């Protein structure tokens, strides 16, 4: 449990709690009072009744108090808490390391961790140990990521006392170390089908000839050709100048909109999870195609990541998507993100939203009105399927409100379809790859309709 020396190669920021000079840790403990009471009672009895043999009962308590008073020193030390990893995947274990360093030594130290809801203890999160002078004792606690999102250690409790357990105290501290829990990698990568989704947004590899890396053809040099394109090897073989033609490297811009709706019950949390999974899949797929990908999270707060390329952008998107799970209640939602005007006009917009809210519908409509091709994935819940069963257990008003909301949603969906937004319903048991394929087919059909 307590390991005296661990290699100092562990990652992650740490939080330090200073014990030195804290008056809360220099209080009298109950054992001191009890020992004092017994010692006093024994001394008074021995003197009052002139029975020195009674001192035999109280001498250990007197000696203990005297030794504790004589040997007491103020608590001196630092407690440092850190996680061995700050990014984990759901279901993985993370080790929380607590280093206790003291120049003068601590007789007894109790460490207790209180993690947030997304972390589950593997074994006990309390440990009792001792610290020798000028040494560091490291305690390792293991917690498991039970749910995706941003988790942290809510509270760190430190209790210290001297070796006689007569002086000491308790200290609570908040650890700032956070752990980002992502969706399992296999689930995300399983939903990736970059080639398929590529056809949704149009072929990136154009049939045109232009500047690029991929060779398309060769032909004799013509007036106007750049000398940079001369293929010297073939020109030498054919004894006349030939040029290399290349496919132009074209990339597109994709903006993914995630509706950070509430996660107040299991169904909504599942919907939230699927939305994030789809957004992550799309981001990963398009970034692999060297597309610029931007993210707009609409909900309790507006999270706008401008379209960029590269792996760093993927990490940024993953962080923002993980933060979606910590969204508070609906009353704080915002629907007029200022970033709408910054979305490029030629960007392909893919929204993942249940479209329950008219304001979200109007946001999608506004983006569509600016000329962007927009597709919406609408995750459905089991609630819609089991509405008839729920009718028995819910009251009439609630059911009417639910029906009204459903009608409103249908109206919104219909208005978006009329504006040329491709909307695909996403059943609960349908994998993301299938629904993306459905979007691709829908967009192809819409493109054919326009060409006719």
């Amino acid at each position, binding site marked *: *449990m*307590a390991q005296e020396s661990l290699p100092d190669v562990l990652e992650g920021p740490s939080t330090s709690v200073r014990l030195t000079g804290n008056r809360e840790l220099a209080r009298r*403990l*109950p*054992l001191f*009072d*009890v*020992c004092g*009471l*017994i010692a006093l*009672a*024994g001394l008074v*009895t021995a*003197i009052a009744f*002139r*029975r*020195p*043999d*009674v*001192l*035999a*009962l*109280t*001498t*250990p*308590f*007197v*000696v*203990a108090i005297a*030794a504790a008073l004589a040997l007491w020193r103020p608590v001196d030390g630092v407690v440092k808490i850190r996680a061995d990893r700050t990014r984990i995947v759901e279901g993985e274990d993370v080790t929380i390391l607590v280093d206790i360093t003291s120049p003068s030594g601590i*007789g*007894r130290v*109790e460490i*207790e961790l209180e993690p947030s809801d997304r972390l589950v203890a593997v*074994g*006990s999160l*309390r*440990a*009792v*140990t*001792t610290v020798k002078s000028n040494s560091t*004792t490291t305690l390792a606690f293991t917690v498991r990521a039970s749910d995706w999102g941003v988790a942290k250690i809510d509270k760190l409790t430190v*209790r210290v006392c001297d*070796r*006689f*357990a007569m002086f000491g105290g308790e200290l609570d501290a908040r650890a700032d170390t956070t752990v980002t829990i992502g969706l399992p990698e296999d689930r995300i990568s399983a939903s990736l089908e970059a080639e398929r989704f590529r056809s949704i947004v149009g072929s990136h590899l154009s049939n045109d000839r232009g500047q690029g890396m991929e060779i398309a053809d060769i032909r004799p040099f013509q007036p106007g050709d750049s000398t940079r394109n001369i293929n010297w090897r073939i020109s030498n073989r054919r004894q006349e100048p030939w040029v290399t033609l290349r496919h132009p490297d074209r990339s597109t811009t994709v903006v993914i909109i995630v509706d950070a709706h509430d996660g107040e019950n299991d169904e909504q949390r599942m919907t939230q999870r699927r939305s994030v999974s789809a957004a992550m899949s799309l981001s990963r797929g398009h970034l692999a195609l060297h597309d610029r990908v931007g993210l707009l999270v609409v909900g309790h707060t507006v999270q706008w990541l401008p379209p960029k390329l590269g792996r760093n952008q993927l990490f940024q998107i993953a962080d923002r998507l993980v933060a979606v799970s910590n969204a508070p209640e609906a009353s704080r939602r915002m629907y007029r993100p200022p970033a709408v005007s910054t979305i490029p006009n030629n960007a392909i917009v893919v929204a993942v939203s249940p479209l329950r809210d008219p304001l979200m519908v109007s946001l999608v409509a506004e983006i569509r009105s600016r000329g962007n091709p927009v597709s919406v994935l609408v995750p459905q819940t089991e609630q819609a399927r089991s509405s008839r069963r729920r009718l028995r257990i819910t009251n009439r008003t609630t059911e009417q409100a639910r029906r009204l909301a459903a009608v409103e949603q249908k109206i919104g969906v219909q208005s978006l379809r009329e504006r040329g937004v491709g909307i695909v319903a996403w059943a609960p048991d349908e994998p993301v790859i299938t629904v993306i394929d459905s979007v691709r087919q829908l967009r192809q059909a819409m493109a054919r309709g326009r060409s006719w």
Partner: protein
Amino acid sequence: MLTWHIDRFFRAGPLCALVTLVLPMAMAAFVNSQSSEDNILGILLVASGVIFIGSLIGSALASGFGAVLFSLGTTVAEVPVLIMVAVGISLYTTLVIHDLSGSFHRGPRVARAIWRNTSLTTLVVTATSTASFALVYFVANLTTWQSIVVPFGVAAIGFAAKLAADSHQTFGRQLTAKRRSQSDADNPVS
């Protein structure tokens, strides 16, 4: 309510709490076997029960009250002084274990150094207390009770006088200390 008590039992460190019952009960039986007085066993068992309850509910005061009651019963029992020494040591050990039971609630991981340090500390305290008591008892048997009390009284009076003198000296220094002038206070740089 029953669930609360069961939960409390396990959170208090059941093993330690059990020891705080078994150890005083064993001492109670031992004292009773060496005593010719009546009802001693009853008093000591009640005291053991109070100590045990104190361990269960995590109250040092309750356990301390039990220890005082146990000491009272032992005093009334008129047992040999060596047995009283043993009782004193066992009561102190019981309270130390009671304190450990408080630290061990909710089943934490405990380093071996805790057991080692606690055992060593308890051993040193008991050995020192035994030696101290032996010295006091030896002197007490050689002389009269007044010859013990008077030197302690004289020493106490002397100690009190020294404390008073120190306090007076400190207070006097504070009164006669040179104070900074107002201009110095306004211009700390100069």
